[in-house]
């Protein structure tokens, strides 16, 4: 009898013995957290954020979904959490968290302990977006959002959309933990605010040793994006070389990015080689465009992107004093022995950048097939 059901008993019992506990609680009986805000208030840690307010309308009407703000205080994270736990009707459920917002003050003090908390406590998603807000999270979450369900959703949706289109960086817990564990590098996290009923992406916050050391504004962040984003896209207006009044709207995307590092004459050399593809979207005033004009345009685009990269790399060396781009990853892979014997953080500040940007305009968007003949 035992022999006969041996296999079934093993199948049933082993997972039970070898796995952890299981919690039965219906999702609607849990306290669903949508966003988390963390701030330093005097000597206390302030947790704030949004929790789902579940409402259902009877009789086939559409159900409502909303969020309410919560605030809790404590000396440590645990204390603040205990303070929050004391006021909720169901178990804390962080599986639906869309973003974690740090205040600038908290960011300057260092987010590493909280990142470790997020990474190691069971129940938090490691793929959650991390941002720094211009104002205190307490104020941020109080603001009303017009174009989304709540603040947490609005921030995540905005950053995600921009990241997908090469306009921002979407930084998650696991990516930050990976950067922290690399030790000698810094990283960027999105910098946001809520203004006039919408979440707004303001730029990127540079982090050194997980402490906020500076902000790269959205308008200046093209260089960062062309170095770090998966699909950086830049849309800009350029004047034609033959006629300065003739303005052209050009969209530039990354074709190929190659980063090589070396160590020569006691200096780190970082070669950045970018192949860009540009598309002429439209002309402000339609007129002929010669081959020379196009060539000149390509050079102008390359120079503009190169300048923006140079500007941010310079800031990283002089202002942030940290390798916020993670060039150390390349260097460690290419020169492992040298890397071991050097202080990357110190030497990075004197690193020499060789930036080569090569742009090709792949589509001039000229609808008139005879345009070329006309300008000859």
């Amino acid at each position, binding site marked *: 009898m035992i022999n006969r059901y041996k296999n079934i008993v093993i199948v049933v019992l082993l*997972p039970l013995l070898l796995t952890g506990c*299981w919690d039965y*609680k219906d*999702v609607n009986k849990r306290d669903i957290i949508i966003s988390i805000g963390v701030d330093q208030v005097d000597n206390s840690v302030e947790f704030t954020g949004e929790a789902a307010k*579940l*409402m*259902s309308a009877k009789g086939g009407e559409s159900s409502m979904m909303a969020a309410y703000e919560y605030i809790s205080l404590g000396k440590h994270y645990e204390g603040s959490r205990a303070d929050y736990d004391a006021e909720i009707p169901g178990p804390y459920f962080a599986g639906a968290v*869309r973003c974690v917002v740090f205040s600038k003050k908290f960011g300057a003090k260092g987010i590493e302990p909280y990142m470790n908390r997020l990474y190691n406590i069971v129940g938090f998603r490691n793929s959650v977006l991390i941002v720094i807000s211009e104002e205190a999270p307490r104020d941020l979450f109080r603001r009303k959002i017009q174009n989304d369900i709540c603040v947490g959703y609005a921030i995540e949706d905005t950053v995600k959309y921009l990241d997908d289109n090469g306009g921002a960086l979407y930084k998650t817990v696991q990516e930050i933990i990976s950067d922290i564990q690399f030790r000698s590098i810094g990283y960027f996290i999105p910098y946001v605010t809520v203004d006039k009923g919408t979440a707004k992406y303001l730029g990127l916050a540079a982090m050194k040793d997980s402490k906020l050391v500076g902000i790269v504004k959205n308008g200046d962040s093209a260089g960062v994006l062309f170095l770090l984003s998966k699909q950086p896209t830049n849309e800009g207006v350029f004047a034609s070389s033959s006629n300065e009044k003739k303005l052209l709207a050009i969209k530039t995307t990354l074709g190929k990015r190659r980063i090589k590092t070396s160590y020569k004459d006691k200096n780190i050399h970082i070669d950045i080689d970018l192949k860009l593809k540009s598309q002429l979207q439209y002309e402000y005033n339609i007129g002929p465009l010669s081959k020379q004009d196009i060539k000149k345009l390509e050079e102008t685009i390359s120079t503009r992107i190169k300048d923006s990269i140079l500007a941010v790399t310079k800031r990283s060396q002089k202002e942030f004093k940290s390798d916020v781009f993670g060039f150390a990853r390349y260097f460690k892979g290419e020169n492992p022995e040298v890397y071991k014997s050097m202080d990357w953080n110190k030497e990075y500040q004197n690193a020499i950048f060789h930036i080569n940007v090569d742009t090709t305009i792949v589509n001039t968007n000229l609808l008139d097939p005879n345009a070329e003949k006309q300008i000859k």
Partner: protein
Amino acid sequence: MGDNMIEESNYISKVEELKNNITGMMSRKLYIKDKVIYILYIPQISNRDSISENIIKPLLQYSGTPIISAGLVMSSIIYVDDVFLEEDDNKITDYIMQGKSVILVSDSSQYIVANTLKVEKRSIQSPEVEAAVRSPRDAFNENLDSNLSLIRYRIKDSSLKIDYSTVGIRTKTSVVLVYLQDVANSKYVTEIKKKLEQIKVDGILESGYIQKLISNKNATLFPEIGISERSDSACANILEGRICILVDGSNLALIVPKGFVAFLDAGDDHYDNDYLGIFIKFFRFLALIISLTLSSLYVILVAYNPEFLPSQYILVLATSRVQVPINAVTEAVMMEVILELLREANLRLPKQISSSISIVGTIVIGQAAVYAGIVSPLLVIIVALSSIASYTVADYTFSNPIRLLKFVILFLSGTFGMFGFVMGLNIVAIKIASITSFGVPFTATIAPFNYKDIKNYILSNVVLDEERPSFLNTKDKKRK
């Protein structure tokens, strides 16, 4: 016939004895020349017109030489086509009970058995349990001869073998094995015949009895033997090298051996658009998984691991359950039970009022239960979807165990969450993988894997299909 019956007085007493033994037996006494002839039959199962026309009439009109033996009567007088001589008087009762007419001729040591059987039967109708859009409509009925005629009409091959046997001590039901002698593996034929011989049961009323009696174990969850109502699908299986078992009195033929993938195969796949066939086959498999797991997944996502879902889905899920006071497991079990009740009620009710049950069911579970806040609208969709999905399996006998196992997995998921769910799926997978149908692994073509077989199965294209499935070990492997 024993000597004691040659004397007229002796077989008068024999006829009297038979009359006492067989209720309702008719005996027609004729004096022809110097002989007394008795015609014995049961009118309910005999063709009386045929008896009058083909036996009585020619006998009464006979004016030839004196009748010297039963042999002469058989060969020179009566018109019946299926007729033979018999000597053993112990068999008379059996022949009469089978609907044959027994003709006793005085002073003859033999008697004549004439086949005048006539059974009331349904005409050939459209299939009901094995419906299809593009397929022949001639389904089997309860008459063995009609069913055999449908098969013979389709397969006009001299190697089509039809082996008769009789099963059931009291019902003496004819059970017939139909197969292609030069194709079907004789191991299966011998095995089935052996199992049929070993059957000791008072009666066989439906092929389901035979299905259970020749299966490997006493109680099987998954069917190891397929059913077929359509004559074309039975013929397709015979051509593939399988054995078709027909049971007199049953409109469902049995197909041996049959495995997992064959249960998901439908006639349309072979007859209609190839691409659609592949597409639908995939969906049939998906539907099987859906019907088995969907409500369990709901319970897991609601009660144990909502974090498996993206954030916004979690909120929608939670919102849909705000007013539901009962927990997800109870809710899911309750809905599944209600659906099973509806299904059963719909099956049992006369057709005229079954539509009212459908309306009540729709209103009760679709509207009122949600409105009353007992169940979440999402669960209604899930339960309905899982129920619809369970109907997509071509052979309904295969969807029955899925219906039962759904509750097992639901129970395990409700108790142990995701681990229970995985455990449940493991148990089902182990169970399916350990079944054999007459020595053929139930999961054949997938495990053990055979690329050619699985390709032929998925494509179901008569142009490309050149070989019979290898797992059937047929004598003739080539189809072309």
